[in-house]
């Protein structure tokens, strides 16, 4: 269980709970930038962007997960991450991510002055970029 120096971290995807573990700190990609959460953090609800969630000081085998979109709730001793999609970097299909990137570029070009289509294209683009960056990052 979480103590004063430990956080209880849960990663939940629409399909299942990926892990529920303790860690010393968590690094999260929020929509507006990265946040690092240490025990005793102020209560926070934030929207999640696309990027890597990194755990420090946990007993898990994989401590880095690529997540895209969702929400996070931070309480002083507990962090719950609701991610729309989460994969271990080793399980990322690099070819599929590249294809997604290309697809995103074509969406981007076809968006014209439709703000909604433009946002949607950006969404796909960021996700693909985060995936590729995560797969290519050797430190895991």
């Amino acid at each position: 269980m979480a103590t004063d120096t430990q956080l209880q971290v849960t990663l939940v995807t629409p399909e299942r709970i990926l892990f529920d573990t303790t860690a010393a700190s968590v690094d999260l990609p929020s929509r507006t930038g990265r946040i690092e959460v240490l025990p005793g953090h102020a209560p926070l609800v934030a929207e999640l962007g696309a990027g890597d969630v990194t755990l420090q000081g946990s007993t898990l085998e994989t401590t880095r997960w690529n997540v895209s979109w969702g929400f996070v709730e931070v309480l002083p001793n507990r962090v719950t991450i609701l991610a729309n999609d989460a994969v271990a970097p080793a399980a990322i299909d690099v070819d599929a991510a590249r294809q997604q990137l290309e697809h995103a570029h074509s969406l981007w070009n076809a968006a014209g002055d439709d703000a909604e289509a433009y946002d949607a294209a950006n969404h796909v683009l960021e996700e693909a970029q985060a995936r590729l960056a995560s797969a290519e990052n050797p430190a895991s």
Partner: protein
Amino acid sequence: MANVLDLRRRIRSVKSTRQITRAMKMVSAAKLRRAQDRALAARPYAQRIASVLASLKRRIEVLDPETGNLRHPLFAVRPEKRILLVIISGDKGFAGAFNTNILKASHQFLALCEDKEVDIEAIGRKARDQMRRRYGVATHDVVQSENPADGSPLTHHVRRRKSRIEVVGDHPGLLEKLNHRVVRELAEEIIRRYTHAEIDACYVVYNEFKSVIQQRVVTERLLPLIEPGSHVIVGATEQTAEERQYAATVAAEAGISPFAEDTSEADEEAARFGTSDVDYIYEQPATELLNGLLPSYVAAMLFHSLAESVAAEHAARMTAMDAATNNASEMIDSLTLYMNRVRQAAITKEIIEIVSGAAAL
């Protein structure tokens, strides 16, 4: 009178049918177990999303003072003139009355929408095929225009409605490999159509599945949202007592608990998500958070319906195949009895012939 050889052949054929139905029953039982686990595993996410939504309602800036509800296009209630009906059936038959029940509920619903325009989004091959045959597929005109940014050609598809009820969309293989990503795309498409006022309401017909003995075919309203976290059921058909009892026996044989798993502890934990009695810092403005939450919520609801429907389909197939196996066994028994009689009759006839032949000497 049929001869022994013919009967033996028929028995052999029924036996091989029984083997197939028995195998199908076993496969369905295994698939049911997996589908049940998956439906259960998907719950924590859906519940947490619903609880953040509920807690956001406490924030004054997103509340609409007129309706006392959240201020968002998905909460806008309009007179229902155009309806989107999502029908979730199975891909394959051999599942007893499963598909028939779904289609019956859909037709009941359609009969109620007398003067409304209805678009049908059919998931599962069975519903798609029948609805397409009966109502026809929506047609689109291709319109060319220029991209105002760089003058490159753009193609648009403009819907041309031919009849009051039409089938839109096609989702082959969605049920076979239930994947949240695809479901989310579907949910986003439904949301897009709702916010653009292409539809005024969205209903889903599916087989709710709590456990093998707690099932019903329901018609649920997905949009507009009124009270996040609750289900708006507009029509439901319960299992009959007979069906329930039989399903329970079959499930017990296959080692599947007929009762829903106790998840109250996990439920309680999920309900606390984002609702702690503390003053949260909201990193994004509450309205923005809401814009991100609602699609996730709708997608989770849809995913939940799909996962339950898949479990229900396997349960229905398991029961149907058990019944088929039993029928085959009965048929084999009666055929064997008949065959023995025929054989005995032939022997008796031969003996009589021999005896009367001997007596004539």
